[in-house]
């Protein structure tokens, strides 16, 4: 399987000729080169190593290592506190539902977290960062990459997806679906749950009963005004 580190690109700290020239200039300027302090005998993240044949300092687990928590990466507790409203205890790493979206035989029907404004805000932020390139801001499947030739993903507003469980959405994010790659390595479980909640909100936005719309917005929807670019400009044009 491919993990985060396996595919990782690497930095190289090997100098370009300019670095050398710069170094020489430094010497001339009596600045002196002291690479021994600059580059200490330790590896920074993703640094190149001359020791291993594949050149990576970040190593995979030794073959045969039994995974203890799989993709169950530690969550950011602050985010968790925010989205759970401080009501839930932090899920144990053994909590399958939290990490897989499954409950019993099927998927968990509703969100793992109590739905709150914080949860939705978090979900919206993460959705905008991670999902919009393909799914678009409205969740209609017209993200920016579809204009570059990526096949349109299905809209969230089709019936099939409106009826799936929250756990199913979580599962797709975790394991990928069709052309969609797994996002387990890029989005933390709690964020995935938050995104799932936000997708629900997106779906709801397309089918919301008129009663749930706030009064002023409702007014605007019912009596659409002709689009005026800038009232000041138009009035100026009249005079």
């Amino acid at each position, binding site marked *: 399987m491919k993990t985060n580190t396996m595919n990782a690109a690497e930095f190289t700290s090997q100098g370009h000729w300019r670095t050398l020239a710069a170094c020489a200039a430094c010497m001339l300027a*009596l*600045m*002196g*080169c*002291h690479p021994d302090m600059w580059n200490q005998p330790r590896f920074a993240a993703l640094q190149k190593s001359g020791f291993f044949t594949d050149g990576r300092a970040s190593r995979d687990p030794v073959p045969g290592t039994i995974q203890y928590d799989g993709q169950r990466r530690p969550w950011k507790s602050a985010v968790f506190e925010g989205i759970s409203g401080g009501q839930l205890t932090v899920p144990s790493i053994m909590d399958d539902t939290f990490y897989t979206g499954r409950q019993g035989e099927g998927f968990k029907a509703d969100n793992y977290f109590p739905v709150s404004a914080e949860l939705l805000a978090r979900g919206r932020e993460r959705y905008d960062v991670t999902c919009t390139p393909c799914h678009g801001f409205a969740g209609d499947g017209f993200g920016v990459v579809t204009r570059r030739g990526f096949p349109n993903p299905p809209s969230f507003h089709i019936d099939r997806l409106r009826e799936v469980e929250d756990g199913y959405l979580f599962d797709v994010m975790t394991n990928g679906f069709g052309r969609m790659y797994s996002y387990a390595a890029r989005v933390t479980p709690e964020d995935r749950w938050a995104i799932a909640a936000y997708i629900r909100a997106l779906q709801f936005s397309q089918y919301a009963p008129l009663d749930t719309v706030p009064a002023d917005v409702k007014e605007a929807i019912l009596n659409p005004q002709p689009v005026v670019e800038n009232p000041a400009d138009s009035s100026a044009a009249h005079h």
Partner: protein
Amino acid sequence: MEARIKTVPPVLKAVAPLMEDGHSHESISRAVSDVVLEMPMPRPWYATISVGLILLSILGISTAILFWEGLGLWGINNPVGWGFAIVNLVWWIGIGHAGTLISAILLLFNQDWRTAINRFAEAMTLFAVMCAGIFPLLHVGRPWAIFFILPYPNTMALWPQFRSPLLWDVFAISTYFTVSLLFWYTGLIPDLATLRDRMPKGIARSIYGFFALGWRGSARHWFRYEMAYILLGGMSAPLVVSVHTIVSFDFAVSVIPGWHTTIFPPYFVAGAIYSGFAMVLTIMIPAREWFGMKDFITLRHLDNMAKVMLATGLVVCYGYGCELFFAWYSGSDYERTMMWYRGFESPFAWVYLCLLLCNLVTPQFLWIKWMRITPIPLFIISIIVNIGMWLERFVIVVTSLRRDYLPSSWGTYTPTIFDWAAYIGSIGLFLTMMCLFVKFLPMISIFELRLQHHLMKRGEIR
């Protein structure tokens, strides 16, 4: 000219005149400048410079290895992080105090006997300060980055720490070197003119002539020259005191028992003058023999220098006494324990006892007049004092550091071959520079000797 001076009663009579009889301005100029112009260097000179060059190459080689490998080659480590480097720094800086002291303070106090020895002592000062300067440079471990300690607008938007005595040291030592150099050069200008005028045509004449700046001995020039010279002297006198005071602050401003002592400033200054005069005697006694300068550097000079050495030696002893007594009087267990270790229990106790022998006992011989005016014993005493002063710095640095407050930071110090190489090498640098100096520059201030001769003839000084 009639003798103007009344007969001096024997009790007040100096041991020798300032200058032996039978000289004229011409003979003075000839005697001093011929060492540069004519005289083949005596055999001991070749011996000395050979030794100097050998030692200097030891310095060069050991320094190159040190740069390559790093400071781990030295014996320093926690808790004794200062070791030989600082011992040698303080020793050399101390030696470097005699020159400016002789030139400046004696100038201010109108001491006529400075004339014959000031040039020599100033040159010695410069070379000693050079030797001293090597050690902090090496001790920082990355000498190529030493400019970090200078205050200038840099890319780090950072300033050196002005509240640290180590930075004061940087300013003090560099100022001291610069001002000593200016003072020395100012004194040299008229003598360079003499050399220029006595030389045959050639490159050497042009070089001396260039540095003589076209000096022509005009009365107007002399007038401003004397003013500038006395002002430089007036500024150098407190400078010389401040420099070793600041060196003493390196220790005293810390809180280490054995270092944090208020007597350090005057005690260090006295020690510096003490060792400085010892070094002047060490090199002047042979030099006046080899280069025929006995007429100008008379027994009177030796006597006076020995007296200064005795006086400053006594001040140093007072410092030792104060350290001992007040360590006890403080009632502080740390102070007392440190002193106890220093004197008895540390593996370096013998060093402390040797230092007492060298600095406390030996100078007492200088109470005897015969000792002061006989070159050989005086030479031996001056060597012993030099050794003693080096041991003193060793004791201060090492015995105070090796027992920190907590037993967890106790350790010891063993100098390695590289420590010794740097130390011995710096002596090589010093000897080489001294030899080159006597070969290429007048070792006695010629114009001041002429003035002295003139005043002696007029009977104004004796």
